[in-house]
């Protein structure tokens, strides 16, 4: 299992490494051999990854990263060949056809998801709860969001979830998915409190159902998850 972290030099703002560490740990605990590849913005994106990860970023790094990924073309090719792509926050916006640049002006995105983003009136900052598209079989999302984006979903994607508490895309939905490409406004280490989502990505990449983890291996993660779910009031 090859995990590729796209541009940690530009797209690693606040705990984004957590997603890589969670996927790595949950794959290893199941006996899957794992290789981690960190690709900086002056390097080529490899084509042979199984799961590609994109983190958050400030306005300028987001613009620069988009430009370089577009010029490199490796991520597009990998996705065409069926790789899994998971992106959070600024990385999620970049996947769309358009997003808001440093001064709010519309800029072309990577076009890997049929979404388009702009800048909202105010920043959404705080805990977020959202109920996942039942087709994905993943329990309620819990996370932290910190963004000023508003995202409209096109006809070729489905919302990842329905917001229970928080802002998400801005219209009551949260995130988007299509095929094996999945994006969310849950920022930073989004998979830490959502091991079900981590396992969905691993299952897609492995192409088969994975055995459950031994209970003691995820007892703490589930306790943390329960604590956060209980701490945040449903609106």
């Amino acid at each position, binding site marked *: 299992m090859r995990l590729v972290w796209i541009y940690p030099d530009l797209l690693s703002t606040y705990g984004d490494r957590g997603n890589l*560490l969670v996927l790595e740990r949950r794959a290893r605990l199941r006996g899957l051999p794992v290789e981690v590849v960190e690709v900086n*913005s002056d390097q080529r994106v490899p084509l042979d990854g199984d799961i590609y990860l994109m983190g958050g970023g400030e306005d300028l790094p987001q613009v620069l990263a988009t430009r370089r990924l577009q010029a490199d073309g490796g991520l597009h090719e990998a996705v065409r060949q069926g790789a899994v792509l998971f992106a959070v926050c600024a990385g999620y916006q970049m996947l769309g056809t358009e997003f808001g640049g440093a001064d709010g002006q519309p800029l072309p995105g990577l076009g890997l998801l049929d979404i388009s983003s702009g800048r909202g009136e105010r920043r959404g900052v705080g805990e977020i709860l959202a109920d996942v598209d039942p087709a994905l079989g993943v329990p309620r999302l819990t996370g932290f969001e910190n963004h000023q984006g508003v995202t409209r979903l096109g006809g070729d994607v489905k919302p990842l979830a329905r917001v229970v508490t928080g802002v998400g895309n801005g219209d009551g939905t949260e995130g988007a998915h299509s095929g094996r490409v999945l994006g969310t406004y849950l920022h930073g280490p989004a998979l830490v409190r959502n091991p079900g989502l981590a396992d969905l990505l691993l299952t897609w990449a492995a192409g088969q159902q994975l055995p459950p983890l031994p209970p003691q291996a995820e007892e703490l993660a589930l306790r943390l998850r329960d604590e956060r779910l209980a701490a945040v009031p449903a609106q």
Partner: protein
Amino acid sequence: MDTTLPGRPRLPMRARLATTVGGAAATVSRLAGKGDGSVIGGVISLRLEPDLLSLLAAGRQVVLVTGTNGKTTTTRLITAALSVLGQPIASNVYGANMEAGLTSALSRAPDAPLAVLETDEKYIPPVIKATQPKVVVLLNLSRDQMDRAAEIWMLARRWREALAAAPDCRVVANADDPLVAWAASAASTVTWVAAGQRWREDSWCCPNCGAHLLREGDEWTCRECGNRRPPVSWVLSDGNVVDPAGQSQPLGLALPGRANASNAVIALAVAEAFGVGVDSALAKMRGVTSVAGRYTQVQRRGTEIRLLLAKNPAGWLEALDVMVPAPVPVLLAVNAQTPDGRDTSWLWDVDYRRLRGRPVLVGGERRLDLAVRLEADDVAFRLVDSIDDAVDAAHSPRLEVLANYTAFQQYRAVVGRTE
């Protein structure tokens, strides 16, 4: 309060009234046991006279100290060094570092011709404008409490604009931090210090053009736009300071760690701007043993406890370096109240693997967040409910404690304030 100062302009009536009322509110707040009262005092004063900060700063030689980490300690070290001059110094020693805290610090020392003010990194532009500082110190810039702080590239841009508009001030800046160096390079006079940079996760790319930086040792260069580490005049080298004349000597600080050595070299560069030489400045700086309760050693149930405070990933990285090595047990504690930042994501930016094999205790209101993080790094630990619980579990003559802001304050309230 006497606001008629020798050598300083007399404050206008409304400003005098403002400082008097603010001072009284601070006294009441102190007596009521609500901290040192400097914030509430300052807030009330500012409501009466919005230009108070600039009126209070007028006629003084002001040093502003800013950056993500080390502000409080560096302010304290500069104040110690400048004490050589034998004149009163106004300083916000309790770390209240926004406009209200600064106002309060100045109004409490009306006859001090010198002021050394720790200033929040987000508020430095208006404070530069209001106080017309002689020296601005730029320490470092890294990710910190992202749920309420500005993004750091944007902060660096604001510093740059503020310094470009203040041609009379001298900047003392860390040349080893590319974001800081880029911001400082807009100033007309800069003293560059090689103060080191332990945390590099926020400066892999050129702040000027965004290209991936070429980094070799302490040097950093942008191949796209030519932005590079400026030539330095002060150097921190293995616990020694090398001054602009090339003279090297050991710092010999009582404060532990690389980060404090870095703060000290910057303080020496500031002292020089006031005509205070390295020898006399160091003699005073070596007497600083604890800063606002940080690094304090206390006895608790037969265990010697040392308290370290760090608020963000760069701070935690430096603090883990400072810790007495294994087998001394470590207590790590994390809260996520508003002053800490409500978002615990930053825990994933710290590498904890060096803690493997030593006894680790995990406390604080968000201990489960930290526990899951340590588990991912294969660090064994035990959860504790309180500092006494940790002392019992440690069962050791010594215990090192690292906590973020409110977790630190909670522990300090239990083990007692020592200053």
